[in-house]
């Protein structure tokens, strides 16, 4: 039986020509829409995600209101054309519910919810193109959208995936192709500045010995992503600031 | 605690029942009739949903779960049948604005499923200590092609012409509920009813006299929190069932 396709070639290049510790190209933009209070768009390789934030506003169902904190309502949705095979419905299946909850957990870790008692923040993410690493892209997009909305956060929350190539070499930012071929995928959402991990999820088993180095790699990825996001935020602030004569720094 | 297997007649020998097997519900019973096994659990009276609140009595809900797969139309029929019987026999007016939940789980089906489920429901009600107007017991009666009546499911299914399920109360032996399959004459129906009643009354009058004691026992034990775990007291249901470690864990 022939072995499965190698994730890494002999010279250490991956199927799409990246090195093992290389991220895919990240491009992002804040404030893509006018109606939401905050919105952002991110591309990680071919994976494309839109995020919109509404709030803080009055809680929609009174029973859920909390006296000491605001509730974060998230919805994950995937366009029916986002995958190669057309999806039947954009949301409501088990996977999207799970991703919604994970996103909520990640955001609860950074948003200063205690500032907005009796209120609610809605975060909606819409995947336009799925090409591996959907969850990290959603978390990163949501972070940007929350920053665009001007909601105070403790620090950035970034997410990244990592895998193990050739049973030995940790690889960063797994693409869909690599996910399909096999190999374990470790998803980490972290606060890169304090180095805290908010969420960690693994898709397959691998030896415990490998965990530290894969995890390190993923955290490193989170830090890299943070740097990229940071730059985009600064640029965005500059754009708005200069256009408004620095009178009003929020859009 | 086990209600003694009744040994008056061959038929009754086929009945076995264990009460209070489950710790969560307010009442539970595992009822065995021949090879058919049904587990019933009762919760209640508990808080009622806004839509289902009844001012002067408790609302009863019954959920029937088949052994495998989703419940279908047939199971919905059993649910409604058992629910109606419980409504008749439980003293529902004592628990206004509350819900009594009866869960029935089919474990094994070798015929007589409906009557076995009804009996299990009755024993679960008994175990829970909810006030009842009377006890009820169900009997299946088979009508053969040659006109004979039998209380045991025949080996050869093709010889069955019809089947009757009767539910009697233990006070006067009247019919609370009836369900039939197949074609039959009025006389055959009467014969089956008589035959069924004899066995039903035999089983249930006896059980009925014991019931206050059983109820009392189960209640006092529960309150005291000293449920006895005496293995000798409990006969395994069926040898192969009892030997199975999974079942043991569930029962004790």
């Amino acid at each position: 039986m022939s072995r499965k396709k190698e994730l890494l070639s002999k010279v250490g290049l991956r199927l799409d020509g990246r090195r093992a510790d290389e991220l895919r190209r990240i491009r992002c933009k804040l404030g893509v829409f006018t109606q939401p209070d905050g919105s952002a768009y991110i591309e990680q390789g071919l994976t494309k995600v839109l995020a919109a934030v509404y709030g803080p506003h009055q809680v929609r169902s009174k029973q859920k209101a909390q006296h000491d904190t605001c509730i974060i309502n998230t919805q994950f949705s995937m366009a029916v054309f986002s995958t190669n095979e057309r999806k039947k419905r954009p949301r409501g299946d088990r996977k999207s519910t799970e991703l919604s909850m994970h996103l909520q957990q990640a955001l609860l870790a950074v948003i200063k919810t205690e500032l907005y008692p009796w209120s609610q923040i809605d975060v909606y993410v819409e995947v336009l193109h799925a090409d591996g690493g959907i969850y990290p892209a959603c978390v990163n997009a949501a972070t940007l959208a929350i920053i665009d909305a001007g909601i105070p956060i403790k620090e950035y929350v970034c997410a990244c995936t990592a895998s193990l190539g050739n049973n030995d070499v940790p690889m960063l930012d797994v693409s869909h192709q690599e996910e399909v071929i096999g190999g374990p995928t470790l998803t980490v959402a972290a606060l890169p500045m304090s180095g805290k991990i908010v969420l960690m999820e693994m898709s397959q088993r691998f030896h415990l010995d490998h965990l530290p180095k894969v995890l390190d790699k993923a955290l490193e990825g989170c830090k890299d992503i943070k740097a990229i996001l940071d730059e985009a935020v600064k640029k965005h602030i500059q754009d708005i600031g200069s256009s408004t004569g620095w009178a009003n720094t929020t859009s | 605690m086990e209600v003694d297997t009744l040994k008056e007649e061959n038929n009754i020998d086929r009945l076995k029942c264990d009460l209070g097997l489950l710790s969560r519900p307010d009442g539970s019973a595992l009822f065995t009739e021949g090879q058919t096994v049904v587990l019933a659990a009762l919760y209640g009276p508990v808080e009622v949903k806004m839509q289902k609140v009844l001012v002067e009595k408790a609302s009863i809900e019954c959920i029937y779960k088949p052994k495998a797969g989703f419940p279908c139309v047939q199971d919905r029929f059993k649910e409604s049948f058992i629910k109606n019987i419980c409504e008749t026999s439980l003293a529902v007016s004592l628990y206004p604005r509350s819900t009594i939940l009866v869960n029935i789980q089919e474990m094994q089906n070798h015929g007589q499923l409906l009557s076995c489920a009804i009996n299990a429901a009755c024993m679960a009600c008994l175990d829970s200590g909810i006030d009842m107007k009377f006890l009820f017991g169900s009997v299946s009666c088979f009508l053969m092609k040659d006109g004979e009546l039998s209380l045991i499911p025949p080996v050869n299914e093709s010889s069955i012409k019809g089947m009757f399920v009767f539910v009697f109360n233990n006070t006067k032996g009247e019919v609370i509920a009836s369900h039939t399959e197949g074609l039959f004459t009025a006389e055959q129906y009467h014969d089956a009813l008589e035959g069924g009643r004899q066995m039903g009354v035999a089983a249930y009058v006896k059980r009925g006299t014991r019931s206050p004691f059983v109820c009392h026992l189960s209640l006092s034990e529960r309150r005291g929190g000293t449920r006895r775990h005496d293995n000798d007291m409990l006969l395994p249901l069926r040898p192969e069932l009892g030997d199975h470690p999974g079942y043991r864990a569930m029962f004790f």
Partner: protein
Amino acid sequence: MAEQYKTLHSAKYYRDYLKNDIRPDCRQLSAFRPVIINVDSIKTADGSAIVKIGRTTVVCGIKAEICRPKPETPRQGFLVPNVDLPPLCSSKFKSGPPSDQAQVLTQIIADILENSRCINLEQLCIFPDKIAWCLYADIICLDYDGSLIDACALALISCLKVVTLPEVEYDPGLDKQQVNLEKRSPLNISCTFVATTFAIFDDKLILSDPSSEEENLSAGTLTVVTSDEELCYMHKPGGSPLNEEQITKFISICFFKLSVILRNIATY
């Protein structure tokens, strides 16, 4: 004022009437409501019947389609009865999937159909293991005013009696079938079943053919289904306990009703 009294004190309101051996709709306790059967008025169906029992109205339509028999019963076709209680017929029902009551009713009708053996499913087979008829019998309640089982059973049997199926020629070699729409033939129905519902009021009074209000107030119902000389269903889903004498009485009433209904059906 009477109207208010009726809604606030409905049980007492009824008791006052029943004391005088009469029901609020002026019927005797054992009286049945008039039955009207109208068949074949819906041309898009392969057979149809509309039954009115008092104000209770039920329509049954049968539509035939072609399918493959089940491997375990290669010589049988299908007859799929379903009862629908749409929100249109009463405010009791909401739109959406069938309510519990509709499901129970569907099961009862399916049981009656099977018990009575009025139709041999083998006549619905066109070619064994290859092609068969599937008759979808959809029974829809249009006005819900009690004794639904009676109305549904009557609608179904009346409908089955007027169903005609076109002739089908099947060529096993080519696996091709051709339908001749011009030549239609009826089904062979071996018996007629008639259901009769009684309500038990205050544990002793027996009301025949109860209306929806009477059903709500009563302490249980009993449905007897007779098929020619025999009984094919005795359905008593809980409610007040009955003794044998009472049951005997019911059965004799039912056989009497059967003869009346049969005369009614025979007229069309």
